[in-house]
């Protein structure tokens, strides 16, 4: 079983897993970073979204071999104590219902706002369209992204 050196949340981590193991399960089962969620396993729901060199990616569909040497950021490493403007906005709006999808939503929103600090309504909706919220708290997700944009911009 090969060993991989991963850069997760600014720390170097060593894991011994088969080369086809999705990053999602490396994070959850091997590194105890369970904030990144399993929803579909086929990159359709966005619950597993993390940042890879700053890009929002689906960790369920990237193997450990594909992410070695890249900087991986999970919800646990997005900020100290949940102080990223997107997390603050999520708290301000009180977005979650069940909350399960929210880490993925926050990771998608934070990567998006890094690239586009003053997005239009349509740009926000396009950016967030790939993340399913089964409780349908879409209205609050939208509002929180808008607030975060105003703080980051």
């Amino acid at each position, binding site marked *: 079983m090969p060993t991989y050196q991963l850069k997760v949340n600014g720390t170097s981590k060593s894991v011994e897993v088969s080369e086809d193991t999705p990053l999602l399960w490396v994070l959850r089962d091997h590194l105890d970073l369970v904030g990144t*969620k399993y929803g579909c396993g086929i990159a359709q729901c966005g619950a597993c979204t993390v940042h890879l060199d700053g890009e929002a990616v689906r960790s369920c569909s990237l193997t450990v071999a594909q992410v070695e040497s890249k900087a991986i950021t999970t919800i646990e490493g997005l900020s100290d104590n949940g102080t990223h403007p997107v997390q603050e906005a999520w708290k301000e709006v009180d977005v979650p219902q069940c909350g399960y999808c929210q880490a993925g939503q926050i990771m998608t929103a934070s990567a998006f706002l890094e690239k586009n600090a003053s997005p239009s309504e349509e740009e926000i909706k396009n950016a967030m369209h790939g993340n399913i919220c089964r409780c349908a708290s*879409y209205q609050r997700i939208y509002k929180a992204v808008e607030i975060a944009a105003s703080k980051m911009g």
Partner: protein
Amino acid sequence: MSTSIASQKFSRRAFMRTSSLASGGLLIGFNLFNACKPNAAPPVDLASLNYNDFNAFIKIADNGAVTIFSPNPEIGQGVKTSMPMIIAEELDVAWKNVYVEQGVLDTENYTRQVAGGSQSIRHGWEPLRKTGATARQMLVNAAAARWGVAPSECTTSEGIITNSKGETLGYGDVVNDAAALEVPEEVTLKEIKDFKIIGTDIKNVDIDKIVTGKPLYGLDYKVDGMVYAAVVRPPAFGKKLASYDDTEARAMPGVIDVVKIGEKVRALLEKDQNASSIISGSDKVAVIARSTWEAMKAKNAIKAEWVDDSTIESTEDHDEILTGFLEGNKFETLRKDGDVKKAFAAADQVLERTYESPFLPHNCLEPMNFFANVTTEKVHLVGPIQTPAWKAGVVAGLLGRDPSEIHLEMTRMGGGFGRRLFGDFVIEAAEISDAIKKPVKLVYSREDDMADGIYRPAIKYRIKAAVKDGKVSAYHLKEAAINSNMYGLIPHFFPAGAIENYQVDVAKYGSSITTGAWRAPYTNFLAYAEQSFFDELAEMMEVDKIQFRLDLLRKVDADADENIQYDPKRMEDVIQLAVEKSGWGTKNENVYQGFVNYYCHNSHVAEVADVVIENGTPVVKKITCAVDCGVVVNPLGAANQAEGGVIDGVGHAMFGDFNFKDGTPLASNFDKYRLIRMKEAPEVEVHFVKNELAPTGLGEPTLPPAGGAIANALKAATGKRLYKQPFAKYPELMTLPDKEIIG
């Protein structure tokens, strides 16, 4: 509702536990069962669940910190925040000093630890208030004794007791004295106008953990030595395991064991008929590995052979069978007023329409999973379950254990929607752990979750109404459904009581496909069928659609029929509120509106959908939703529930489609199953009726009206009437007549 502020008497026996904690402080529990006798049965078929005792606990430390245990499972409906708010209000503490913990399953001290039927707050309202008020009174009595004054001379505010001289003591100062006192037999509840916490916006108690990714959910739970299980399930409903070859799987990395499960379940099914509707009788193969991925991968390497066990069905079969039922005479009558047959014979006009809906999977975003550790001492179960008491009982039966040996902890759930009422996954986890003698986490893949589900059954309604002398003289509703029919008081919902000749008939077909409750069972489709029909009936009668509904409501004498639980006055009020807030009838000509009013889960709702034409296509732009659910405990959370319910209703009416070919679902993941997403979600504006009536359901009631509201609005926009869900499946009905597209 003057009773809610009256002095409350209850017996000494009402208390289950008042004891000093070893660590100092007071733990108070109150048997809520004795105090809670709602006069109306909940409109849900949860009779098979164990409704034993129901308790709430308050823990006050010497330093005045207050911990409140939230008794009921949290599925995203917000009770982990709102139930403790009710206790904290009457306890009279500052919310910022309250810590909330999830209570474990405790059938001796709690009752109705269920997330189902939108009933947690309705059932908990008075008992939770009394729990808080009783603790408050004991703390006051302790302080009064120390001061040598009468308790009536003392007041409280935010955890501080003050006497008439202005001296103060904190709750923490007197908590140990209070623990030694007699429990008062009478406590006074606050007047609603004096509420400081209830009715204010309180944020989700888990918000910080959610936005930072802390472990909260069943799938996040881990213990040392825990292994993972993935289960090979029948590829089609109606098939069972004949044989399997696990040679390849056993040789794969990380694989620890492969076990066949099902024998214990079959033995249980013979004893427990309640379990049979939700568990297929087939054996399954569980692959045990040291990680989730290794278990899931090795599962795919199991070579299993399956044989037919019962009927192998396809969607076309269901269509034919249900239509046959509607046209046949194998009905059970659930309500009968007057004589519909005679009324139809004497009618001036008759309207008959049929409405059709598919099966629906729940698709909780957190797939089914559960932790089990079966040892000789006890059975430890941890995970997401809406009905912990029921499942703990079933597991005791499954493993032949005494119920006292079952310890069940509830995690926050990544959605429930009814799926987690049925703990088939708890049973599987327990059987696997029992077989391998290890702590194990059973994990469903999304495909397992969607393709081996317990679905909303496919249903067809046929509604026929007669008009005589300008009035609706008869109404005949027929339901043909897979496996089970509407239950409880649903046959007595509006318009029952408003029409002289009225009949509800139901018929069902026993299918090999497992079905069960799905958010707002039956009404999630029935509301659309009936409210579409009302619009068509009003059109035929050439009367205003709102007036049509008001005319019916004004004929209802709810006091004359104990089965009629909706309140015509409250219904009329939500109708007027929705009319006012939506600007009904005053919008410009590019906005097409559709109206629905509905009652379920003890709440009254009216919704107006706005459809606009964008680039020649009708788009659902906005839903205005008026809700009367009595006192709104947490407006911030309540609005979230209401908005989510509406969008969930819109999403499933538009896109929810689930079909079978030879017993196999045609979709098993989100690439083929469409859920509503950000860009399709309409704006939702929620307005709550302000009153001082005891709270009623909110997790479900805003969902059922949404499908009807958009169907009625789309009809206004396109001139075309939608009789089948999901609407997006019939694009030809979602387009405008040619002449309008040109414009």
